[in-house]
């Protein structure tokens, strides 16, 4: 019963918070879009293409932020065996991968008018590409086991290994980039970011963060209900899954 208390509390809390969070997310994203498309001035050098930055940069921030959230959740899962932690990591992963994908595609679309190529091996884009593969690796690993709980534990270890390696990879990519420096050095975002350009960025970032929080809560609720469904089916003898561990049954125990 104690095991179930935390998930129940989460269900109650999320039921209360989720509508507000989702509403705030929608408002912030809408405001961010408005600022990005109508209010922000065109850039002196890049013209209107700078508007891509208002999607690209917040997406890049989210890509890293979500991975850090996953790392914290994985650490909690491994150290304290909190039942919600692995569910949180698993729920966050597709969201993080989505933001990373948006960052890569918008980066490419930004790069073509700016540098004349669809892909440029600059340090940041390359690091985001590696991060994308870290997300894909996690998703592949947690879905590679017949027993769902096995994958979650392995995934937590992988995320922690990834988060320790990320600074090393980032450093080595920066190193590699300076060795093979392209003819002209461009920093995405321009030399300085004026205040008028900053507000749309921050509002979009806020919107993305609220969107992530809302979807995370929603996906965690889905996972908890699904666990209950599996447990009820198991008790009723309907479930034919041969590998059901004791922990997954306990998680869904309503008694």
């Amino acid at each position, binding site marked *: 019963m104690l095991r179930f208390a935390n998930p129940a509390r989460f269900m109650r809390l999320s039921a209360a918070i989720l509508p507000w969070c989702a509403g705030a997310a929608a408002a912030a994203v809408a405001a961010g*879009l408005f600022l990005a*498309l109508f209010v922000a001035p*065109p850039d002196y050098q890049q*013209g*209107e*293409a700078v*508007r*891509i930055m208002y*999607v*690209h940069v917040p*997406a890049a921030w989210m890509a890293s932020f979500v991975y850090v959230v996953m790392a914290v959740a994985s650490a909690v899962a491994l150290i304290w065996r909190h039942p919600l932690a692995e569910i949180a990591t698993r729920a966050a992963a*597709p*969201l993080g991968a*989505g933001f990373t*994908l*948006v960052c890569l*595609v*918008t980066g490419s*679309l*930004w790069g*073509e*008018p700016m540098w004349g190529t669809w892909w440029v091996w600059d340090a940041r884009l390359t690091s985001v590409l590696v991060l994308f593969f870290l997300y894909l690796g996690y998703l592949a690993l947690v879905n590679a086991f017949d027993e769902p709980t096995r994958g979650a534990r392995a995934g937590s270890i992988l995320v922690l290994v990834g988060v320790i390696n990320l600074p090393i990879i980032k450093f080595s990519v920066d190193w590699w980039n300076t060795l093979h420096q392209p003819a002209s050095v461009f920093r995405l975002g321009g030399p300085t970011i004026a205040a008028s350009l900053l507000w749309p960025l921050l509002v979009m970032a806020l919107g993305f963060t609220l*969107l992530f929080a809302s*979807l995370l809560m*929603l*996906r965690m*609720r*889905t996972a908890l*209900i*699904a666990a*209950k*469904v599996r447990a*009820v*089916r198991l008790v*009723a003898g309907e479930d034919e899954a041969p590998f059901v561990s004791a922990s997954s049954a306990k998680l869904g125990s309503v008694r």
Partner: protein
Amino acid sequence: MTDQMAHFLAMGGYAIYVWPAYGVATAVLGFLVVQSVLAYRRTQREFTALERRRR
């Protein structure tokens, strides 16, 4: 009015970069929203059906 609209849509000549960028972002994030909501509703339905059958 339409002159302004045309100017806005043209994005100073960068339209084929800016609008697909926003489009991809909307598509990917929108897909995540839709998929999450549909999965939630589906799981909810399964649960209530199961509960109803139990009683």
